C-alpha cells in the first residue's frame, strides 16, 4: 500500500472485544437499567433505538433486532457481565450467550473508510445515509457484516470469525487505490 493510500485508510485486525448476545422482549422491565448498569454508570441510557448503538466506559450496546442486543465490552469483563445480566434477568424469558469468539473485529481508520465500504456493499454509507451512533448490519462482498463509527475517521466492523481471512483480504483490496472520491466533496 502506498503512503498516499495509507493516509486515506489504515486497516487493523481487532481489537478483540468481549461480545454478549442478549435476546429478550424489549419491554422487559428494567432491561435498559440492567444493560446500562452492566456497562457501568449509564442508568437506563443503554437501550439503543433500532439501528443504533450507545457507548460508554469502553463498552457499548448495539441494536441487533427487535428482541436482540449485542453488548460490547473489554474481553476480561465478559464473564462478569454475563453473570450479572443473567442474575438481573432471572425470571424473565431471555437468552444470553458469549459470542466473543464467534466474531472477528476490524478497525478502519482514515477518511477512506466510506469509499472502502461503498466498494464492497449495498448499504448507503454516505454521510447523509450513515452517521455516528448508527449501527448497520449489511453485506460486504459475499458475507454478512455489521459496522459503526467508533471515532473521528474511524470505523469498526465485525463479521463471522470463520470468514475473517476473506474479510481481511476484501478490505485490503478495498483500501487499495484512489477510489472515485465521491464522498470527498464538501457535505456530499
Amino acid at each position, binding site marked *: 500500500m502506498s503512503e498516499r493510500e495509507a493516509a486515506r485508510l489504515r486497516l487493523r485486525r481487532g481489537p478483540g472485544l468481549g461480545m454478549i448476545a442478549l435476546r429478550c422482549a424489549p419491554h422487559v422491565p428494567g432491561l435498559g437499567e440492567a444493560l446500562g448498569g452492566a456497562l457501568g454508570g449509564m442508568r437506563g441510557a443503554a437501550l439503543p433505538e433500532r439501528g443504533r448503538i450507545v457507548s460508554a466506559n469502553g463498552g457499548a450496546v448495539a441494536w441487533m433486532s427487535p428482541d436482540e442486543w449485542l453488548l460490547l465490552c473489554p474481553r476480561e469483563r465478559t464473564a462478569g457481565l454475563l453473570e450479572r445480566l443473567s442474575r438481573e434477568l432471572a425470571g424473565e*424469558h431471555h437468552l444470553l450467550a458469549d459470542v*466473543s469468539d464467534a466474531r472477528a473485529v476490524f478497525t478502519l481508520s482514515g477518511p477512506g473508510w466510506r469509499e472502502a465500504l*461503498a*466498494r464492497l456493499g449495498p448499504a448507503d454509507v454516505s454521510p447523509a445515509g450513515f452517521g455516528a451512533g448508527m449501527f448497520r448490519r449489511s453485506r460486504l462482498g459475499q458475507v454478512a457484516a455489521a459496522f459503526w463509527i467508533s471515532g473521528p475517521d474511524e470505523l469498526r466492523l465485525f463479521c463471522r470469525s*470463520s470468514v475473517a*481471512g476473506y474479510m481481511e483480504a476484501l478490505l485490503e*483490496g478495498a483500501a487499495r487505490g484512489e477510489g*472515485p472520491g465521491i464522498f470527498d*466533496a464538501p457535505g456530499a
Partner: protein
Amino acid sequence: MSLRLSSGGRLIERDRPLDFTFNGRRLRGLAGDSLASALLANGQMLVGRSFKYHRPRGVVASGVEEPNALVGLGRGGRFEPNRRATTVELFDGLEAVSQNHWPGLGFDLGALNDLAARFLPAGFYYKTFMAPRGAWEKLFEPLIRRAAGLGRAPEEPDPDGYEHFHVHVDVLVIGGGISGLQAALTAGRTGARVMLVEQGPHWGGRAPVEGVRLDGRPAAEWVDAALGELERMGNVHLRRRAMAVGVYDHGYALLHERVAAHTPGDGRPRHRLWKVRARRIITATGALERPLAFVGNDVPGVMLASAVRDYVVNWAVAPGRRTVVVTNNDDAYRSALVLREAGLEVPAIVDARPQADGPLVQRAREMGIRVVSGSAIAGVKGRRRVRGVRLCAHEGEGAVLEEIACDAVAMSGGWSPVVHLWSHCGGKLLWEEGQAHFRPDPQRPPTGADGAPLVFAAGNANGRMETAAALADGQVAAEAALKALGTGRERGGARAPLPAVAPEEVAPMLPVWLMPRKAGAKARMKMWLDFQNDVKVSDVELAAREGYESVEHTKRYTTLGMATDQGKLSNINGLAVLSEALGQPVPQTGTTTFRPPWAPVSFGAIAGEARGDLFQPVRETPIHRWHETHGAHWEPVGQWRRPYAYPRDGESLHDAVIREVRNARQAVGLLDASTLGKILVRGPDAGRFLDMIYTNMMSTLKPGRCRYGLICNENGFLIDDGVVVRLDKETFLCHTTTGGAERIHEHMERWLQTEWWDWRVFTADLTEQYAQIAVVGPKARALLERLGGMDVSRESLPFMEWRAGELAGFAVRVFRISFSGELSYEIAVPAGQGLALWERLVEEGAAFGIMPYGTEALHVMRAEKGFIMIGDETDGTVIPQDLGLGWAISKKKADYLGKRAHQRPHMTDPNRWKLVGLETLDGSVLPDGAYAAAEGVNENGQRKVQGRVTSSYFSPTLGRGIALGLVEHGPERMGEVLAFPATGGRIIRARIVSPVFYDKDGEKQNV
C-alpha cells in the same frame, strides 16, 4: 482519401503527437484523437470486414453506435477484440488490428461470400445443409463455425483489475450534453443528491460541434460555466467515461466506467462498475442519426452526416476532399457548411425532398453549394473506397440522371432519440410522424417501487430536437423528477433563467426508408440496413414475404440489429422497411425490446473484485492453520474447507485414509469437528418447539443427556440429523451437520417467526463460538485422563451424556457421543482456545500414537457402523422410514414437521427402497452410485432397477469393500445377491447384509 486538416480540431493537441500501430503499420495521431479519427487522419478508411459477406468496411459513425470500425486492441493478456475505434481514446503505443478477414484486410478470401451473396439471402441456412444425412454435423456446421465470430478471444488471463462501487442518489442524470447539464443544475440547486454521468471523455454533447450559441457565447463556454457551478455544489457528483448501460427495477442503474482503459497498466482498475440506487433517473441521452438505404451505402467513405461534422470540428479530420451530402432533412446541410468552411469541396447536396428551402438550405446555396432536390442516390461507385455517386429522381425507379465524382458521401436519414435506457424498465414509446421517429411516451413511463414515474427523458432523447427546446426540457425533466421525489425540494431551488438561444427555423424532413422510392428488386439487394451483419432491404422484405411478420421474427430471421451495435443504426430503418412491406404504419409494427446493456460491458467489470482468492469466501475453523501446516488435503464442504486426509510424504491419499481409520480404531484419533452446527434453543417452550422440529421426542430429554435426532421438512424428507443436548431445564444445544448449521437455524427461526410467534423460545447460532474436537479410539479416555481435570470415567460420564468441566486447564464441555463406533469424546472449547487444546491433545497424545484424521476416514468409520450420512444416504427424496430410523420417529407425538407428509400413499408404500448393507462377493468396492438391475424393462424401454448404492468404501477394518444402499424390500432379503451393472459392461454381484458391518452390538462406543 481521408485526411487531417491543417487547422481546427477542438479536441486535439497538435503539439502532442502519439505513435500507434494498425495491422503492424506505425502511424501517428494526436492527443485528443479517437482511434477512428487517428486512422482517418492517416488515410486509413478501410478498417474491417463485414460479418457475412466480408465486404470492405469503413468508419461510418463517430460514437458508440459504430457498427463497422471494430478492431482488436492490445496484445497478450491485454488483448481485447471488437473494440469500436470510435470510442477508443488514442494513447501512445496503442496497438490495433483489423478483424474478420484472411489472409488480409485488403485481400480477403472470405469476400467470395460476397460474390455468392445472391445465393445467401436471409435465413438461407434454415433452408439447406440438411442433406445428405449427417452432412450438417460433419461438414456444414464445422464450416460455418470456422467463419464464426469477429475478433479472436484473448489467449492469456486478464492481468487487469476491476472494482465495483455502490452509490445512492436522489437523481441520476444520464448524459453530459446541454440538456443533462441543465437538468443537473436544476436538481443540484435544490440540494438534492445528484449524480451526472457522461459516457464519453468530454462534456457538452453535440452543442459545441453544432456551433450553437447560448446567451450569445459559444456553447463550450456555457458548458464550462455550468460544470464550474456543479463542481462547487457539494451535493453533485460528476463523472466522465461513465456509461449508463442499464436501468433496472426500483431505480437500480448500472454504470460502466472506463477508469484506465486509455492508460493501460497504470495500476488503477481498468473498469469500475457503478451500482447506483437512484430514486429518480433522467435520461438526457441524445439522439442517433439514421443512415439512408441506397445502393452501395456500405462502401467505405459513406458516413453519417453528423459524423462527418464531428470529425471535421472535433479532430480536424475529413473523410475526403470531395464529399457529396445526401439527406431527407435540413440538419445534414450543417455538414455541408462545415466542410465548406474547412475549405473542402461539396460538389452537391442531394435532397430527397421535392423542394428544399429554409434558412440552412439558403445558406448552403449562398455558399455556392449545388442543391439537387427531389433526387436520390442511384448507386455509389467504388468498392473499397467511394469514387463517385450516380444520381436519380427519388420518386423514380433509379434511372441514372448524372454521375458526380467524389471520395466521400455524408448521409442523413433523420434522427432517432436514444430511448434504450427509458425502455429497459418498461417505458413505452410513441411514434412522432413529423420526425419519423419513436420517442418516450410521457403518459407511459417506467415506474418505480412507489408506482410513480421513475425515469424522465430530456432533450433530444425526449424528441426535443432544437437547442432551445432541449435546454428547457432538461429543466422540465429535473423539476418533474424532483416533484416525484415528493421532498418538496422542487420549490427549494431558485429557477434560474435559461440561457437565450437564437431560434432555429427548420423545414420539415421527409421520411425516406429506401432511395429511390421505387427501386427494383435487384437494387434492394444492394441497400444495407445492418452494415455489420450484412442485412439488406431485400432481406427484410423476404422475411415479410415468408410470414416472419412480427418485428421480432424479422429480427431473428434476418439477424437485423443482432450485431455488436444491437441495431443502433439499423433498427428504425429496418422496421420501417418491414412496415412498408406489410403495408402497415410503423407504430403498428412496433419495435423490438430494448435490453441492457446500452453498450457492451466487460465480464471482468461484472465480476469485479470477486476473482482468485476473493472469488468466494473460504470459511476456516480455529484449527485451519494447523491442518494446513500438517499437510491436510482439502475437501470443500460448502464454503468450508475440511481436511480430507493428512497424507504423509510419499503416502497416497487412499493409504492415508486407511492409516487414519486403523489408528482411530486401534489407538486414538483426532478430528476437527468445529464445523458442526451448534444452535442454542432456550425458553419455557423450547421442549415443545423441538418436539415439532425433530421427529423424536426431545422434551423428555433429561439435563446432562444427549439424544440423536432427525429433522424432516414439511414434505417429510430427511434434511438433517445430529445430537441434541439438554443443558438445563430451559436450554437445549442442537448439533447439526456442517452444511446444516445455517440452514437449520434459519429453518427454526422461520417456524418461530412465521408460525409459532407466540411461543416463548429464543435461538442463537453458536457454531463459531466453539471449537469442537473429537477424541476417538480405545485410548481416548486414557488420553483425557492424562490431560487431567474432570472425571471422564464410564461411571461419571456414560455414553450419550455430557458434562462441563476442565481439561488441562481449559474450560470445556465434553459430550460422550460417537460417530465412529469407538469410545469417543467430543470436546467443545471457546474457539479462541481451539488451536491450543488441539495442540495440547496432539502433544499429550503422542504417547498413545495419536493421529489426526480427515473427513474420508470419518465417512469410512461411520459406514462401517451403518450410520447414515446426510447427503449420501439422503438426497431430498428419502424419509427416515427408508433408513431403518423408524425408532427415531416418536409415535407418542400428535404432530411434528413432516408427520402429515409421512401419511401420504407414496410414503407408506411398502415397496419403497430400504437401507441395507452390501458386500461384494469378490470383496471389491462397489462403484459409487451403482444401481441394482432387475429383470425386464419398463414401458419406456428402460431397464428395471431394484436398488442403488448410497455409499461405498474400502473398509480397512474388514479388509474388503463395504457399501450401504437402498433396496426394494431390502431388509426382508438378507443374503440375497444383487447384480450391479458397472461402467464398461462389467457386472458386480453383491450380497444384501446388515448395514452394521462392525461391532454390531455397539460395545466399543459404550465402554
